[in-house]
Every structure is written in structure tokens, then in C-alpha cells.
């Protein structure tokens, strides 16, 4: 609602948004999912060399527990968590540690890591630890199990999942939301996981319900994956309170805040977390991973990734060992010679790759390859004509037009104070719609980092 007329009418807002079953504003980029959404998940071969950055998550880097030259078995612990907001790292393949040295990452930074040589005859066999039984485990034991499995948000954020599941003192969780939205164009990872791993998902939900104390679980799915919604609805187990809800297709519905509004009709307070409205949101692939790993005490060593885009010949959804070099992955799927841009993640929020020697990490949800034919750079940036397209696209109802003008004048403090800059989660809807091709979200990213630096100093 518009603030000029309505002061505190959250209840009316809630009714309206619930009724619409979605959130305010947003955009509709072309989905381009039909190339891969019908293709079953296929297992990828082991790359002869696996490159593992030690820190594949947000938070403290893990501590290495192996030495150069050591032989490791698939599933063996390579690095242990260093602190609470940190997760361990497991060997994705049986082989020998060739080198412990800095490895390239997508940001261009070299970080400490491991070069792991796969044994020529390595199998799918893997080491198992001590399983966590959801019947008997306490919430804290489940959280420890999640941490020990090395699980991070597989939707792309790579935040340690157990840290997110930890309900802060004095707060409680009512609704557990399983995020099967996958609003990024091209990506079909979560779609396939929902169609192929229903039991893992439901097992994961059992663990999650117990650890969060939530009263119910809702699996949120966008209407372009109706088959997945029908499939899961037909298999809902009786022992847990879980439902499937289908919401209209709209970007960025996969963002936590937007999904909570779409499903619950509540708004997460500015600067707050989902738990402030008694909700916890977990990605559906992460949930499946919890359901698959915890009963056996395994660590995460592979993940499902959609490799697609006009530059790929063998598009598909692949189960790929963590640490597989990007160059090897692209060779396997036969990339067209004229590739010009490669993104990790989807085209809306994914990061462009500058170096094919980086490797696939836990947070990589997709690889999209464009050839020079699809990539078109806007020839010029026009001044803002105040058409309002960005204002009607911003899911947070910020005013990107005004923020963009202020950014040009370097009025960062005013942007943060008066125009809620720090709420922006960089979905890019504003830049997507701007007819003047103003790099709005790019300005905001820069502005946010400047504001953060100023605050720190």
C-alpha cells in the first residue's frame, strides 16, 4: 500500500497480499527453463583433478586436517569447522592430496585450498559417520548433524544452514518454509530435485521441523512447476504437518522475504530476519540434502547443478562432485566455441566468470553459458526519464530512480537514511526493466559497500 494514505494498516496489507498469494511488484523475465526441466538428473564423471577452496561458505574458513600427499577416501573429512558460523569440508572423491595451496575463486581472489587427484578407479563408495536419528535426536543434536555434514544454503547464498536454523533466545518458529520457487531464469535444479527426491525432501523436513520447533511446513512452488507440486502433493506423508502451496510466477519470489510475504502475508521488518515473523526458510535442495545425509552421518560431496544456456550442447541437470573444475564441466557438456559469457548461478543474480580454472562449489546452483550472439551490450546509457518502471519493479518498494540519482551525486548517507538503501538485496529487477540502461543495482552494490565501510570506520 502507498504510505501517503495509509499509516499502520498492516492487517489490511496482510489480507490483500494473502489474497493475491504473491508479493508487491516484481518482474517477469523470460523463463527459458523448457530446455532442461524435463531432463532427469544425471551423474557426472569424476574430474581427474578436484580443486577445493577451503572456505565455500559465508563465515569463518574451515581448518585443514589433512596433509599434502595424504590419501583420502570419498566422504572423508578434509577440513573441520572453525567456530559456529563455519562448516567442515569432505572429500568429494577418493584420491591423493597433491597440493595444499591457494586456488582461484570466482571473485578473482586466490584463497587457501586443496588440489585433490582422483584415484584412477575411484568409485561412488563413501565413508559414513554416525547417523542422526530424527526420532530420538534433540534439536541441538540435529543442528550439530547439519553442521557436521557441511551443509550450506544450496540456493546460492552458501550460508551455513545450521546457523540459520538456530532459533535465537526468546524467539520461536511457527512456519517452516521450504523454498522450491527457483525464480531465476534457466535454472531447473530445484525442479528436478522435487520430482526425483521426494523422500529425501520429506525426511529433511522431519529433521527441520524438529530442530526449529515449527508447527507446520509449507513447500512453496511457482506455478511453472505445477508437475512438481502435484507430484509432491500426492506423496505427502501423514506423520508430519506439511503442505504444498503454488504461487504465481514472478521474480524475485525465491528471495526469503518475498516468499514469506507470498505464503504467509507477513512482511519481515526492515533490517530484520525471517525469525522476526516466526518463520524459517530453507531451500528445497538443501532440505533434500539434509534428509539424505543425516541418517547416515555423511558429509556433502556433490550437488545438482543445471548447466544450460545457448552455448551448451548437452544441456542438463547434473549431479556434480564439489570441486569439479569449471573447464572440465564445460568440456563434458560440449560447449560451443563462441562462448562469450559464463555465469555461476542464474542470469539475474549470478556472478560472471572471468577464469575457467575456478571450480564448482557448494553454493553453485547453475552454470549458464551465453555465446556472443545472445550477449548484447546497451550502446549507451540515457538519463533517467522517470518512467517509473523501476519503482513498479522493486519488490521492496524502494525508489531506484531516486536512489540512482543520489548515487551519482555520491549522497550515500542520504540514500541509506532516507531511501532505505541497505534494505536492497540486489535482485536486479530495477536494472532489468530500466529503458535508459542505467546500471541501478550496480550503483547500489557499490553504494552499500561504501556505507558499510563508513559505518565500520
Amino acid at each position, binding site marked *: 500500500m*502507498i504510505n*501517503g494514505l495509509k499509516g499502520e494498516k498492516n492487517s489490511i496489507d496482510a489480507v490483500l497480499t494473502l489474497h493475491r498469494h504473491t508479493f508487491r511488484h516484481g518482474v517477469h523475465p523470460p523463463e527459458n527453463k523448457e530446455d532442461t526441466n524435463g531432463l532427469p538428473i544425471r551423474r557426472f564423471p569424476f574430474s581427474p583433478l578436484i580443486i577445493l577452496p577451503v572456505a565455500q561458505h559465508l563465515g569463518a574458513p574451515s581448518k585443514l586436517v589433512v596433509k599434502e600427499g595424504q590419501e583420502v577416501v570419498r566422504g572423508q573429512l578434509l577440513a573441520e569447522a572453525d567456530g559456529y558460523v563455519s562448516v567442515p569440508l569432505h572429500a568429494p572423491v577418493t584420491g591423493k592430496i597433491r597440493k595444499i595451496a591457494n586456488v582461484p575463486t570466482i571473485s578473482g581472489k586466490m584463497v587457501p585450498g586443496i588440489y585433490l587427484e582422483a584415484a584412477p578407479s575411484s568409485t561412488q563408495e563413501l565413508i559414513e559417520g554416525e547417523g542422526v536419528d530424527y526420532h530420538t535426536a534433540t534439536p541441538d543434536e540435529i543442528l550439530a548433524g547439519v553442521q557436521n555434514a557441511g551443509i550450506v544454503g544450496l540456493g546460492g547464498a552458501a550460508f551455513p544452514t545450521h546457523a540459520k536454523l538456530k532459533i535465537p533466545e526468546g524467539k520461536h518458529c511457527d512456519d517452516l518454509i521450504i523454498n522450491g520457487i527457483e525464480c531465476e531464469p534457466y535454472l531447473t535444479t530445484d525442479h528436478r530435485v522435487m520430482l526425483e527426491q521426494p523422500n529425501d525432501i520429506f525426511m529433511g523436513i522431519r529433521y527441520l521441523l524438529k530442530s526449529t520447533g515449527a508447527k507446520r511446513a509449507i513447500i512453496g512452488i511457482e506455478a511453472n512447476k505445477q508437475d512438481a507440486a502435484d507430484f509432491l502433493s500426492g506423496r505427502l506423508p501423514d506423520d508430519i504437518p506439511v503442505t504444498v502451496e503454488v504461487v504465481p510466477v514472478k521474480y524475485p519470489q525465491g528471495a526469503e522475504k518475498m516468499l514469506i510475504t507470498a505464503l504467509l502475508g507477513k512482511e519481515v521488518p526492515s533490517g530484520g530476519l525471517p525469525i522476526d515473523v516466526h518463520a524459517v526458510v530453507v531451500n528445497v535442495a538443501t532440505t533434500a540434502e539434509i534428509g539424505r545425509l543425516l541418517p547416515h552421518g555423511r558429509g556433502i560431496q556433490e550437488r545438482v547443478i543445471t548447466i544450460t544456456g545457448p552455448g551448451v550442447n548437452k544441456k542438463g541437470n547434473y549431479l556434480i562432485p564439489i570441486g569439479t573444475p569449471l573447464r572440465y564441466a564445460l568440456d563434458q557438456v560440449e560447449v560451443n566455441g563462441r562462448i562469450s559469457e559464463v555465469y555461476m548461478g542464474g542470469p539475474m543474480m549470478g556472478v560472471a566468470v572471468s577464469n575457467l580454472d575456478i571450480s564448482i562449489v557448494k553454493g553453485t546452483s547453475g552454470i549458464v553459458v551465453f555465446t556472443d550472439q545472445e550477449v548484447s551490450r546497451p550502446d549507451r546509457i*540515457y538519463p533517467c526519464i522517470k518512467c517509473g518502471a523501476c519503482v513498479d519493479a522493486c519488490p521492496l518498494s524502494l525508489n531506484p530512480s531516486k536512489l540512482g540519482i543520489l548515487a551519482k551525486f555520491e549522497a550515500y548517507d542520504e540514500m541509506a537514511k532516507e531511501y532505505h538503501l541497505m534494505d536492497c538485496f540486489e535482485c536486479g529487477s530495477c536494472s532489468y526493466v530500466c529503458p535508459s540502461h542505467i546500471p541501478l*543495482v550496480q550503483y547500489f552494490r557499490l553504494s552499500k559497500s561504501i556505507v558499510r565501510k563508513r559505518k565500520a570506520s
Partner: protein
Amino acid sequence: MSVQTLNISTSPHLTKGLSTETIMFHVVLAMLPMVFFAIYSFGFNAALVIFTAVVSCVLTEHVLCRISKKPTTIGDWSATITGILLGLTLPPIFPLWMTFLGGVIAIAMGKFLFGGLGYNAFNPALVGRAILQAAFPVAITTWYGAFQLDRFSTINASVLAFPFTEPIVDGTTGATPLSAFKFDGVTTDATDLAFGLVSGSAGETSAILIILGGLYLIRRGFMNWRIPMAILLTVFVFSGLLFWIDPVKYPSPLFMLLSGGLMLGAVFMATDMVASPITSLGVVIYGIIIGALVVVIRIWGGLPEGVMYAILLGNAISPHIDRLIRYRVYGTSKLQKS
């Protein structure tokens, strides 16, 4: 796999593929039927006036870009739009030298002085016209009857008036429906107004073509429908109320809607994106203010027509509307301080 260079850029890597240039070009397309109708009903005179206005605007923009050592911006079509709009708001027999001057003023003072496209506080075409009206009050109210038999064979002497001379007023001029009503108390038939069978500025006479052009832009998503809707509804309701109180003294709301420059102003001028507010509620308030001002000026003011001043005043307050009316930011419940 051979890779020459990998391009990197920050997300998003997709765009909607719409450009400012495209939007502006479609606005030009939407105005073409009005231009053709103006030429059809007013003949060569109107063609010359519109052509001169466009040439003057585009030329001024080009020259000013060159002087300020910037790449020329005539390719974005916005100067063309200003030229067409200016031409359409002038009487069909307006002297060409004045028209040219109007175009220079519109671009130089209405647009360039503020910083060019995107920074103009007012609709540039209206700035040009307002100054012409102040400078040449006689010429700008010298009308010409529509569908005169010699419209394609002769050029009115007034049109070709020598620069810096006032035109000779011609005997064949016709009063506009609004001035006929204002000064003589005569109302014009609504069907004549709708189809443009009346006297007036070159482009303001056919309400139907203006509405069709507007619908085209709305359908393409290049025009905020709330602006013309709010203006026209306000005029209809406000003047309807007056008509209901005293049908003899006040004109009918249908006459108010279809006469003068209201349709052209509401659809093609008040909708200038740069000079109108940005939020949905903001543009509705903006439209209501313009609509109310139109009725007030037409009925109680000294001028027969008030659309131009109403829109200019609306433009003036639109930044203030944007400051006061903002969307409530997600996750906040309090009204923001402004």
C-alpha cells in the same frame, strides 16, 4: 573448446530489451495520425507550421549539443516529440518565424537549460508555447476555419509573415469552440468536436485520433493511463457538477471534455514522464490537480483555454508530490519522514 575472451559484468545479465529511444519513437508513431489529420483539415498551412516546429526543435538540440561538446542527442526522438507537440498546439496559420522561435525556446529554455532529457522540470513544448503566447498574444489566438476549400492550393499570408513582423489578420479566421462559448455563449455540437470538424490549434481538434494514439501507447506500456484518466475524470465530474447546478451558465461536461486542447494535453503532454510524478498515487493526485485547474481557468479565468497553464503548474508541483507520496517500503510500517 576455444575461448578467446570471457566478458564479465555484474548481474543482472538480462535486460527487458526496452530502450528510451524505442519508447520515444512509439510516441512519435502515436502522434502521426493527428499530424495527418491536422494537415488534412487545415491544409498546407498546418503542414508548414508542424514541419517548421520539428525542424527548429531538432536543429536547436543538435546545435546546443555541439556547443556544449556532447554527442548529439537528436537520435533519441525526444526533440522530435517536442517539435510535433509544439506544432500541434499552435494555430494552423501561425507565422513560421514565430514557430521557429518557439521551437528554439522550447528546447533551449524548456529542456537544455535544465540539463537536457530527463532533467526538464516542465514539458518543453509547453514552455515554448507559453512564451509564444506571452510574446504574440494576437497571432496565437488568430484561428483558421477547418476544411476551407483553398487549403491545399494557397498558403495563408500570415504563415509567411516576414520575420519580426506581425502577420496580417486574415478574413477567413474562425473562432474556436471554447472562445465562441466564452465570449459569445455559443456551444458546439459534441460530434463535431469528437471528429475534429471545428476550428482550433492544428492538432487539438480530433479527440478520437488523440484517444486512439493514447490507447496505442497505453497498450504498449509506454504511457501511464492514470494521468489522462485522472485529468479527464476530474474535468468531467467537476464541470458536470457545475452543469447540474446551472445548465444555462455552465457548459456541458461533454463539451468541456472534447473542446480545446484538453484531450491533447491530457493524453500527450501531461504524460511527459520526466515532468510527472513517479508513483501511481502521485500521478492520480497530479491528474486531479491539472483537471481541476483546467475547469477553474476555463470557467472563471480570463482566458478561454487553460490546459497549458494547468499542465505547467502540475509539472511544477510534481517533484513535491514525489517527495510527499512514496510507496511504503517493504518491512516498514511508519510513514517516512520526507
